[in-house]
Structures are given as structure tokens and as C-alpha cells.
């Protein structure tokens, strides 16, 4: 199986791209063949992921495994260096799983205009970009994959989106590009200041700050911060998110929420923290501050929303706030919680967007005030919505809990040298955020699912959950329960890598 070890990552990243080429070659009238090819590709990719999971060495999760390090652009000293460790593996698998489910969900839910070929090709291209970002171990490679997701998402929102799609798509594109342009400048600065000059992430992390003076580190960190924070998105860079989510087609929203937002947070963990530990240390209170502002602000915005999707979008701002709070503590505990939070948020919010899409399909509206009595008309759909709302508000026993609770707990005791008082205040504020989260999610559930059917939809024939929906949702629902009951499944993978990271940072800070 040596063959597999050296090809696994490449397969995981480029199988979808190869599938896209095949999809493009199939004539657009052959809808069935298009769907089957896409499904087969994403399933094969998932199979690679599962095989990686099986062959992963859990005793050394801190080490990069399935490494490939080949020459790529020698002239600029950038290499094709890919690999996964405990930090990337859970996210990579979550991405693969969500993508398969998206393909299944689209089976008979194609958004208008109905052009399956283009839509499926974009999903596959998106998967290449997402998987690549989680595997890249070279800054330039990371940058390419990080940017690669922009194009498909831009088209997905713009072509298949809602009424305001043009504005939303270009806003999404410009915001992200602005961040990543500055991020690229930071990468270049890192390259020129490292010695020997390199774009290699592990080697840069090993140099741990490279003995740069604090002001230089802080400046470089600022560029990366913008790139990643816009993607997360952190308050006040979040304004693209509600628009993009509201206008995007269901699958677009799901992928955006479940995976694309994680790319930003992952960037912090993979690049910003280990390479610039001193700057991360200086910035931590501010990142924490923005994180808790995001938690409260997102929650308050949720309470004011009338559109289901927009509400879930703002809830993402709040949830990503918890994740960033965990990262900002710079502790082993907090970062572990953040990664868990990312996976949990991916599953739960992905589900919520699926549900919002299904509700819209049935009622042709997402206006919360027009909906009601979902439990009467489509009880299964209603209960799944209730279940996901519970998971999202952090009910113990479901996955959402293990993302939020440890993140808050970690704020009680941030890394050495970071003001404890500040972070304890953050912890309290974040706790208030969880109360608000319970408020807006339950209120949404109550208004949408409980009560009587509104007169407008009385007597309307509403389908309960279809088989493609069952197929697409069951694995995610199982995942939410299993991770909630046995969170160690993920902590066991991440812990080694995160411990390494925390040690490295502590060592660099002396």
C-alpha cells in the first residue's frame, strides 16, 4: 500500500477535477449520465478519504502523513507539498462527506435555470479547491486552492441564485479577493524574511517567527488576518455573508456554510498561528474581542431576521465567533474545541441550510411569518428541523455542544501571557451568546414548525421528506448524534497535532 500512501492526497484533491473534465465532455442532454458521473466521482473521493482514515497513524497525528513533496515552480521555490495531519483530516473528511450529500440532494432539486451540467461541474471544481486547501503544505499552493473556490461559488450564486444574486455574488467575490490579495503580500513578506527562503508551511512553522521583531510580525499578521478573517467571516468583515447565503442556491449555501467558512479559520490554525506565534500572541485579545462581538452581534441580528436563510446565515457569524474565540485562546484546549466546532458547525449548519432549501421548495417562501405548522403538514421535516435547531444551540449530547462549550471553557484560562481577565470577560459574554442562540433558534422553530398552518397554505399538499433528502441527510444526522455522544472520535485525531502546535508556539515565545 505504499502506492496509496504517496498518491492518496493527490487523488483526494484531483479526482473531483478529473470528474469535472468528464462531466464537461458529456453532452448536456444526458442528464442521468452527468449525475451518475458526479456522484461516482464524489463517492470515489470519499472512499479515498475513508481509506486515508483507515491508514492514518493515530499515534502520530501531529506528523504530516500521506506526504507528497515534488518540484512544482522551482524558480520561485514553491513546491507541490501536500499532506494531512490531525488538524486537516477531520475537515477534509467532513468536506468530502458534505459534497457527496450535496450531489445526492441536487438529484431532483436542481435550482433554476436547470443546467445540471454546469452546476455539477462547478460542485466538482469546488471540491478540488476545498480539499486542496486542507491538504496544501506550501503557501503558494494554499493560496491557489484558497482562491480556486471563489470562481465556482461566484457562478453558483450568480447563475442559480435568488433575485438579488448579481449584487451578492460580486460582493462575495470582491470581499474575499481583497482579503486574499493582502494575504498574498504577507506570504511574500514571509518568504523574503525566512532563511533559507521558503514557502513551505512546516519549515516556516519550524522557524517559528524567524526571530523577526514584533512590529514586522504584527504587520505581516495583519495581512493574513484580513485574508482569513474575511473568509471566516469575523465581525466587522461579515457583511458579504448574509447576502451570499440568502441568494445562493441551497447547495451553494450548504457548501458555503459547511466548508468555505472553515477555510478562514483553518488558515489561522495552519498558517498564521504557527508561523507568527509572537504576533498571534499580541493579536489574540483583539481576535477574541471581535469573536465575542460576532457572537453577540450575530445573535442579535438573528432575532431580527424574517428570512429563514438569512437567520441561519447570521447564526453562522455567531458560531464562527465561538470557533475564533477558541483559536484566540492559543491553548491546546481552545484550538481542539475550535476544530471540533468547525466540523460540528459544518454538519449542523449544512443541515439547516438543506432544511431551509426544502422548506422554500415546498412553500416557495422562506418568510418566517408566512410559515407555520410544518409539524402538521410535514411532520418528519418539522422534527428534523427541530433536531437541528437543538443541535445548533449546543444541546449536550449533540455535536454542537462540543464545539461551543469547550471553546468557552478554554477562555477561562488562555495561553500564558495573555490577559486572563479579558478572556474571562469574553467567556461570560459568549455564555450570554449561547442563551441568545437558544432564543433565536427555538423561536424560529416555534414560528416555522409549531402552531397552525397559515391560511395561505391551508389545504396545500406538502410532501414530507423525499428519498433523496433522506439519503442526503441521514449520514449528517447520524454524524451529529455520534459526535455528540462520543466526541473523542475527533479529539483523538486533532489532539496530537494541536499539542504540537501549542508546544511549538510556546517554544517560540520562550
Amino acid at each position, binding site marked *: 500500500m505504499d502506492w496509496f500512501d504517496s498518491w492518496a492526497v493527490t487523488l483526494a484533491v484531483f479526482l473531483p477535477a478529473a470528474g469535472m473534465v468528464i462531466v464537461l465532455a458529456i453532452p448536456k442532454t444526458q442528464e442521468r449520465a452527468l449525475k451518475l458521473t458526479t456522484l461516482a466521482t464524489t463517492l470515489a473521493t470519499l472512499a479515498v478519504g475513508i481509506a486515508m482514515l483507515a491508514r492514518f497513524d493515530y499515534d502520530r497525528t501531529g506528523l504530516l502523513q500521506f506526504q507528497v513533496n515534488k518540484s512544482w*515552480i522551482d524558480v*520561485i521555490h514553491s513546491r507541490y507539498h501536500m499532506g494531512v495531519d490531525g488538524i486537516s483530516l477531520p475537515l477534509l473528511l467532513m468536506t468530502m462527506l458534505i459534497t457527496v450529500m450535496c450531489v445526492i440532494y441536487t438529484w431532483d432539486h436542481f435550482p433554476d435555470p436547470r443546467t445540471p451540467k454546469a452546476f455539477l461541474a462547478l460542485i466538482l471544481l469546488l471540491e478540488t479547491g476545498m480539499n486542496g486547501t486542507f491538504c496544501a503544505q506550501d503557501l503558494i499552493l494554499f493560496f491557489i486552492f484558497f*482562491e480556486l473556490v471563489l470562481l465556482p461559488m461566484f457562478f453558483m450564486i450568480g447563475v442559480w441564485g435568488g433575485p438579488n444574486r*448579481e449584487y451578492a455574488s*460580486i460582493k462575495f467575490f*470582491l470581499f474575499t479577493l481583497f482579503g486574499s*490579495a493582502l494575504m498574498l*503580500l504577507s506570504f511574500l513578506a514571509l*518568504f*523574503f524574511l525566512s532563511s533559507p527562503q521558503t514557502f513551505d508551511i512546516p519549515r516556516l512553522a519550524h522557524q517559528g517567527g524567524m526571530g523577526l521583531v514584533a512590529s514586522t510580525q504584527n504587520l505581516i499578521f495583519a495581512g493574513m488576518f484580513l485574508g482569513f478573517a474575511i473568509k471566516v467571516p469575523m465581525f466587522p468583515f461579515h457583511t458579504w455573508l448574509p447576502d451570499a447565503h440568502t441568494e445562493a442556491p441551497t447547495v451553494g449555501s450548504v457548501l458555503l456554510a459547511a466548508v468555505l467558512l472553515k477555510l478562514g479559520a483553518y488558515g489561522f490554525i495552519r498558517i498564521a498561528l504557527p508561523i507568527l506565534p509572537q504576533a498571534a500572541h499580541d493579536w489574540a485579545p483583539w481576535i477574541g474581542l471581535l469573536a465575542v462581538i460576532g457572537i453577540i452581534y450575530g445573535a442579535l441580528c438573528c432575532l431580527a431576521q424574517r428570512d429563514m436563510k438569512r437567520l441561519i446565515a447570521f447564526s453562522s457569524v455567531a458560531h464562527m465567533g465561538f470557533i475564533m474565540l477558541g483559536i484566540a485562546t492559543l491553548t491546546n484546549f481552545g484550538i481542539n474545541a475550535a476544530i471540533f466546532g468547525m466540523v460540528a458547525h459544518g454538519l449542523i449548519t449544512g443541515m439547516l441550510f438543506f432544511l431551509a432549501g426544502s422548506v422554500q421548495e415546498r412553500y416557495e417562501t422562506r418568510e418566517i411569518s408566512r410559515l407555520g405548522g410544518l409539524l402538521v403538514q410535514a411532520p418528519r421535516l418539522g422534527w428534523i428541523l427541530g433536531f437541528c435547531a437543538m443541535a445548533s444551540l449546543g444541546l449536550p449530547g449533540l455535536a454542537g455542544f462540543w464545539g461551543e462549550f469547550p471553546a468557552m471553557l478554554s477562555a477561562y484560562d488562555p495561553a500564558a501571557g495573555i490577559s486572563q481577565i479579558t478572556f474571562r470577560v469574553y467567556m461570560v459574554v459568549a455564555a450570554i451568546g449561547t442563551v441568545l442562540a437558544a432564543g433565536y433558534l427555538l423561536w424560529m422553530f416555534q414560528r416555522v414548525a409549531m402552531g397552525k398552518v397559515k391560511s395561505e397554505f391551508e389545504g396545500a399538499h406538502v410532501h414530507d421528506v423525499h428519498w433523496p433528502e433522506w439519503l442526503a441527510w441521514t449520514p449528517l444526522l447520524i454524524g451529529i448524534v455520534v459526535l455528540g455522544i462520543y466526541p473523542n472520535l475527533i479529539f483523538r485525531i486533532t489532539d496530537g497535532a494541536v499539542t504540537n502546535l501549542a508546544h511549538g508556539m510556546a517554544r517560540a515565545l520562550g
Partner: protein
Amino acid sequence: MSPVFDYHALAPELILTATIVVVLVADFFFGERERFQTSRIATVGVLASLVPILTLAADGTTRTMFGGAYVVDDYALALKGFFLLVAYITLLVSVDYIGEGDYYQGEYYFLLLSSVLGLIVMASARDLITIFVALELISVPTYVLAGWRKHDTKSNEAAIKYYLFGVLSSAVMLYGMSFIFGLSGSTLLSKIGQYATRPDLPPLFAVAIFLTLVGFAFKISAVPFHFWAPDTYEGAPTPVTAFLSVASKAGGFVAILSLVYFGFFGTQTAWQPVLWALAAASMTLGNLTALRQTNIVRLLAYSSIAQGGFILAPLAVAADGNAARSAFEAVVIYLLIYGAMNLGAFAVVIAVARRTRSGEISSYSGLGQTAPLLALLMSGFLFSLAGIPPLAGWFAKFVMFRAIFNGGTPAAYTLGVIAAVNSVIALFYYAGVVRRMWFRDPSEAGVEQVPARTPPALGIALTISAAVVVVIGIYPQLFARIGEVAFPG
């Protein structure tokens, strides 16, 4: 002493000259219906001149002629190859355009090839006079080409504007060159280079450099010397516009590159502020004006002004040693990639105009439904121009940023941030066209589409450009290597 005449080294120029003569003469003998044969002769001639470039590259020795005024080294060869390929693609996009209008056939190719000859001479020119002659050889035929559509007032305006600005810039440049000659006592760049390292340079030398560079700033349509470009681009036949915006512009850049690296390198303080201001102004103003355009060719004109700013930026901050090298590589690589993506974009414009008979951006509405392949290609070229990975444009932008950071001065970092902000602004108008093509309905186009097949020649041009944009985007090492080899130091 009779001059050394290295036939091998001069073979590309000689083959091209012979082709030019044959095209001109053959045109007399062809009847009305066989006129298109001239285009074939021209194409064969251009491809034939590529052969000695390959053999010379394989040989690898640097050949110096005419007392150092004419040098064939890797730098010259790389650019000659580039110019000939650009010429080939220009011929491909011209064939049907020229053949279907009731224009003259032979003269068109005669003029185009003469301009190409100027370009490949420019790549080897290491002497003020040779540079000037090459520049005029590039420019004069294009003055006529810009006015090719005789009965169209816009085309006439294009030619007149271009001619007047061109002559003015040549005059300013010559004035500057005369000072340089007067001070240094030589027209050879190598001698000027030696002079420029002296510690006691008179201020007049800086003025002379300034005037010379301003002359070239007109050629590369750098802000504030760009006023001719949008009108000329819009009025000229589109294949000529493609040639002007890629080849003739690149000719100007090559001249600046040669002057700066072989002639003025010791005197950065004299020319770097000038280039810095030109670069910053070009990208900012070019982009901001492009935002307001409603005609696709004018949009591409302003975009190429902005791209010109990006290409100049590394030179504006090139310091000694390693930074000088990476700036040089950045310019060469950027030119190569810019050539492919801009020619591709113009080829699509020509193909679309065959269907819609319109150059308005609004006529691109719904192209994704009416002509998906063309829309896909156009999206690719535009996103490449915007620098979005994994299309080749990202690498061009990347080497530019890398060179700027290698400069490492506060001025360099400032320019880097300006360039970064500008590349975001640029996305807005590039994506604006893409949005029209994919997010709008064909009914918004406001023009009647006639079904027109894309002719094979145009198809080949599109395929080549698209292949370069995709392959170089994924594996930039190919062009990066050319940039590396080309560095003369």
C-alpha cells in the same frame, strides 16, 4: 573594417524580410479571388522565422554584431520567439476579418509583417539608434493599419490620433537620446552603462533619461501619456487593436527593459521615481476609468493601460543584485502571459462581433446561453487578466508582487499595496462582463444575433491562447524558466 555578418544570428530577420517582399510582390499577381493566398505566405513566413530562433536557442552562444549594437542572446531570443508567436496569432485572427471586409489583402500583411520585423529587431537592439529605428519600424506601419477602415470616421480618427501622438513621442524621445549621446559620447547602451556608473553625473543626464522614458511611456500608453490609446483601440480594426495592445506595447516594454538594464542601471535614482509614478498612475487611473466603460474594446484598452502599470511596477523598484533579477524576470514573464490572455480576449471579441455586429458590453448579455463556449473562453481570459488562480494571470501578478517585495524599500511596499488594491478594483469590471454573459438573459442584449460559425483560423488562435492560459496557470514553471534564462546578468 567590414562588419561581421552572422547569417545564422540574423536568419529570423532575413526570412521575415524576404517574406515581406514576397507578400508585397505576390499581391500584384494574384487575382481578386486568390488574394487570400497572401495571408498564407505571411503565416508560413512567420512560422519559418521561428525555426532559426529554435536552432539559435539550442546553440546557446551569445552573438554580438555591428560593434555591439545588435546582440542575439537568450533574452533577445525569448522575446523574438514571443513576438513571432504573437504575430502568428494576430495573423490567425486577421485572416477572416480582413478577407470578409472589402479591404486590401496584400498590403495588410505587408504592413503587419513590417511591424513584426521591427519588434524582433527591437529584441536585439543594444544601441540608441537601432532602438529608435526598430521603434519606428514597429510604429509607422501601425499608423496605417489603425486607419485601415477607410470609410469609417472612427478609424480615421484612430489613425490620426495615434500618428500625432506617436510622432510627438518620437520627437521627445529623440531629443532625450541626443542629450544622452552628447553626454556619454556613445549611442551604445554598454558604453552609456559605463558612463552612468560615474559618481559625478551632470543633472542633465537625468533630464535626458526622463525625456527618453517619456517617449516610451507614450508607446506603452502609460498614464498620463495614454490619451490616444482608447480612441485608437476603438477605431482600429479589432485584429490591429489586438496587435497594438500586445505586440506593439510589448515592443515598448522591451525597449525600456533594454535601456534600463543595459544603459541606465547605475542611475536608479534618476529613473525609478519616474517609473514609480507612471506605474502607480497607470494602474489606478486605468482601472478607475475602465469601470465606466460600456464598449468592450474600450474596456480592454483601459484594462491594458492598467496592466501596463503592473508590468512597469517591478522596474520602478528594482534594486541591485537579486532584486534586479527578479524584476527583470517579472517583466518578461508578465509580458508573455499578458500576451496570451489579452490576445485571447480580443479573439473572443472578434468572434462575438461576427455574431452580434456590436462592441457594446450590453451585447454580451446571455452569451453563456447563446454561445457557451465563447462565453467560457472569455470568462477564462478575463479572470486570467484579473489574476484569479488557477489561470495564468495569477502567476504574472505573483511574480510582479514578488519582485516588488524583493525591492524591499518603503516605496516598494507602498507600490505593492497600491497594486494589490488595484487588482481588486480590476476584478470588478472584468467580472462585470462575466456577469453579463452568465447572469443575464439574452433578451437584454438588445442586438439581433446572426448565427455565425467561428472560422477555423480564429478557433486555432483561441485554442492556443486558452491552452497557454490554462497550462501556465497550473504549471507556471515553463514560463518562469524562460524568464530565468532570459536574464542577461
